[in-house]
């Protein structure tokens, strides 16, 4: 495992840029760590290049890749567009996985997945493949952009209304669920608002209806009276809500804490002092890219407080294998397999999204992960023998040690017995079923 000191950081040094030195050298293990968190894993060449380039230059490339990302995404936007609205969203899941594998900007997809878990729209409730696609595109558009614009999009997104059973917001009967989820899950967090705020927020949504999967404003259903929300008074509309909610420090804290779990650690709740400086600047500029950048470049990110302190989600587990073995696989069966492991993309279990961490693991999902690894490595079956561990190992080194370095960067304890001529698939499978490989 990486040579990481157990030092306690004060907030300033925790978020200061990591500069490798003799005490904390930049190495293969930390390169692997960076690619697990800021991407979906890496090829051997990517890891080698990262080791040569150093951390900050590697992070430059992950944050702002030189490739034409917009052109790539336009192409996939077209490919994934459902033929008609009655289509199920299952094709969207498969296209999204394909995009995660092939994108020149994996961090963008990683953050799109983060926001998907945050807003937790369920395609089964949306029941419109096109509205679901528009939602996913909204998440991607602002995934590394402005949280203000993200939230403005979310409170006017048909998929969000449909997913929360709030498609008719009548003046006489304002629906409180949308308001409650908006405050409790999307922005302020539990306990940071009163029931009255929920009721008044619900009134501010009056007039919004989803008709034929499009959001429409019906003027005569608008409640034009004064509302009092979080200490402010006015004839608020849904547009005002975005401003009111992001003015609350609790909103920035919610997002920073959640992103901390996503990028740094799920095993320990961060100290409030650690969150405070990031929440303060994020509260001002709402710049997601800058927040992500601060976290990724930090001393804390490259410390023992972060290293292997997350559980891989099924997406991270499987795509780590696919990326390492340098090929794309058929993603419709992969989407199904991930659903069986508890991560049915576009169908989170509740509006709180996936809890993640140790909740991913029980003996059934663990056996399922082993079997998915075996299926991905097989030369036949649903994944069509796309991955060829022998060829990849042949290019870069001898198989057993190579797979340990590629997938675990030396974090597993090899036993003393020698088996140099192990079959490459078997060798890869043995590494991928080590408990250590489940940790991100």
């Amino acid at each position, binding site marked *: *495992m*990486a*040579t*990481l000191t*157990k030092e306690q950081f004060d907030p300033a040094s925790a978020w200061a840029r990591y500069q490798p030195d003799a005490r904390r050298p930049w190495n293969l293990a930390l390169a692997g760590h960076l690619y697990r968190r800021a991407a979906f894993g890496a090829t051997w060449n990517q890891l080698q290049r990262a080791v040569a380039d150093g951390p900050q230059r590697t992070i430059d490339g992950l944050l702002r890749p030189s490739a034409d990302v917009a052109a790539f995404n336009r192409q996939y936007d077209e490919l994934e567009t459902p033929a008609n609205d009655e289509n199920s969203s299952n094709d969207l899941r498969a296209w999204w996985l394909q995009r995660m594998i092939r994108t020149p900007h994996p961090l963008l997809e990683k953050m799109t997945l983060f926001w998907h878990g945050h807003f937790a729209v369920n395609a089964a409730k949306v029941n419109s493949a096109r509205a679901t696609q528009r939602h996913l595109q909204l998440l991607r558009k602002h995934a590394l952009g402005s949280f203000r614009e993200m939230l403005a999009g979310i409170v006017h997104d048909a998929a969000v209304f449909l997913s*929360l*059973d709030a498609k008719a917001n009548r003046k006489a009967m304002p629906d409180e669920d949308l308001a409650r989820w908006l405050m409790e899950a999307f922005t302020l967090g539990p306990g940071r608002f009163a029931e009255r705020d929920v009721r008044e927020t619900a009134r501010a949504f009056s007039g919004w209806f989803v008709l034929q999967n499009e959001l429409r404003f019906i003027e005569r259903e608008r409640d034009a009276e004064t509302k009092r929300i979080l200490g402010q008074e006015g004839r608020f509309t849904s547009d005002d809500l975005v401003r009111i909610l992001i003015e609350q420090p609790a909103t920035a804290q919610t997002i920073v804490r959640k992103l901390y779990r996503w990028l740094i650690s799920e*095993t320990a709740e961060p100290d409030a002092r650690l969150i405070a400086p990031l929440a303060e600047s994020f509260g001002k500029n709402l710049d997601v890219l800058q927040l992500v950048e601060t976290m990724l470049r930090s001393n804390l990110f490259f410390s*023992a407080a972060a290293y*292997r*302190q997350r*559980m891989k989600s099924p997406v991270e587990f499987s795509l780590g294998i696919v990326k390492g073995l340098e090929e794309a696989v058929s993603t419709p069966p992969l989407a199904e397999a991930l659903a*069986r*492991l*508890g991560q049915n993309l576009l169908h989170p*279990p*509740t*509006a*709180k999204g996936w*809890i993640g*961490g*140790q*909740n*991913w*693991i*029980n*003996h*059934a*999902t*663990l*056996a*399922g992960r*082993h*079997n998915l690894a*075996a299926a991905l490595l097989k030369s036949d079956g649903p994944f069509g023998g796309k991955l060829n561990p022998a060829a990849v190992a042949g290019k870069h080194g*001898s198989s*057993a*040690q190579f797979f*340990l370095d590629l997938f675990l960067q*030396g*974090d597993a*304890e*090899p*036993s*003393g*017995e*020698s*088996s*140099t001529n*192990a079959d490459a698939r*078997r*060798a890869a*499978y*043995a*590494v991928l*079923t080590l*408990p*250590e490989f*489940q*940790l991100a």
Partner: protein
Amino acid sequence: MTQTRRSFIKTTLKAGAFVSFATHAPGLLVRTAAAAQQRERDTVLVVIQLSGGNDGLNTVIPFGDDAYHRGRPTLRQMARGAHKLDSHLAFHPRMEGFYRLYRDGLLTVAQGVGYANADRNHPGGMHNWHTADPRSPKLQTGWLGRAADFLWKPGEANVPAVFVGAIPQPFASNAAQVIVPSVRSPRELISQNFPSVGRGVPAEPSQSWLDSLRRATAQVRSNNRRIESAMSASARGDYPQFQLAEELRAIAHLIRADLGIRIFFTELGGGNIGGFDNHAGQLGNHCSLVHQLSESVAAFIRDLQRDKLHERVLLMTFSEFGRSVRENGRRGTDHGAAQPVFLTGGRLKGGLCGAHPSLTDLDKDALKFHTDFRRVYATALDRWLGLDSRSVLNAPFEPLDVLKA
């Protein structure tokens, strides 16, 4: 990680001793996992969903009631051939298995089960039985999912609940915390050609998740053996050739393997608007479905009886609604309300629970309920699984007096 360990890895690798895939398991970890599984032999709940709205009147037949014969000129089952429970009621003629269980005191029929203002649409009716809270249609979890959440905590490898079947998992087992797997065969819980785990090293405090993962990995290994041996030991179980029977056989294997699974959920009728929805030409379809139900469940209980495992099992059925008393002119029936719920297992008192609902005092041509369905759920939760039903059902419901002390 310590410098010592890092240099150990380096030297080991440099010496050319590559990682090996020895078949031994770290003994300590396996023993820990086995100990965790060998706690008290827990009770098991099996729930069968009958999709489509089962016609309770042609399942538990009130043959002694003229109103039944008047309402069912073509669909009625005559007393002859039916399995009489008393002078008034009989099981459908093709429910031999249920009848034998009933005679042996292993089966209880809870009659007149339903709820106020029952939803007679398929999705709404089913959703209510799944959430167990008709007043909260937006509830995000099902009652079995919430029970599973109460039976589990993060870091435990145990799987509290499993859905067995080929259809998408019904909402009843939707959980907020725990991942409830869907399987068609016990083999899906076995990891294929499992190689050795890495050699165990003492974990540092910050690596407690790695410890949990090692325990879970060891448990997967021991489960592999338990499932294999349960499947070969009980291969002789005598089940009819129905899909439900195969699913119940899989459940019997998993109960025998003793993996700590407390809730099994399965289905008959095919999900969605299922096979029990017979608005026309009901007779043959319904006959076949209740036959499959009765014979599959009986085979399951008989199989478990061989090693007294039936005493650990409570099985219950439910459907989204019962059906109309009067047939509809197309030799079918329409959506109704109250229904009989079947409970079977080794610790039931047996017999009938509650009176058969009146066939003349009706609610829009459907039977009125007298027993709230949450009382059946509370029985399963409180009296069987040992959970606090109030926290699962979000309200207090009195369990039924159907279980032996």
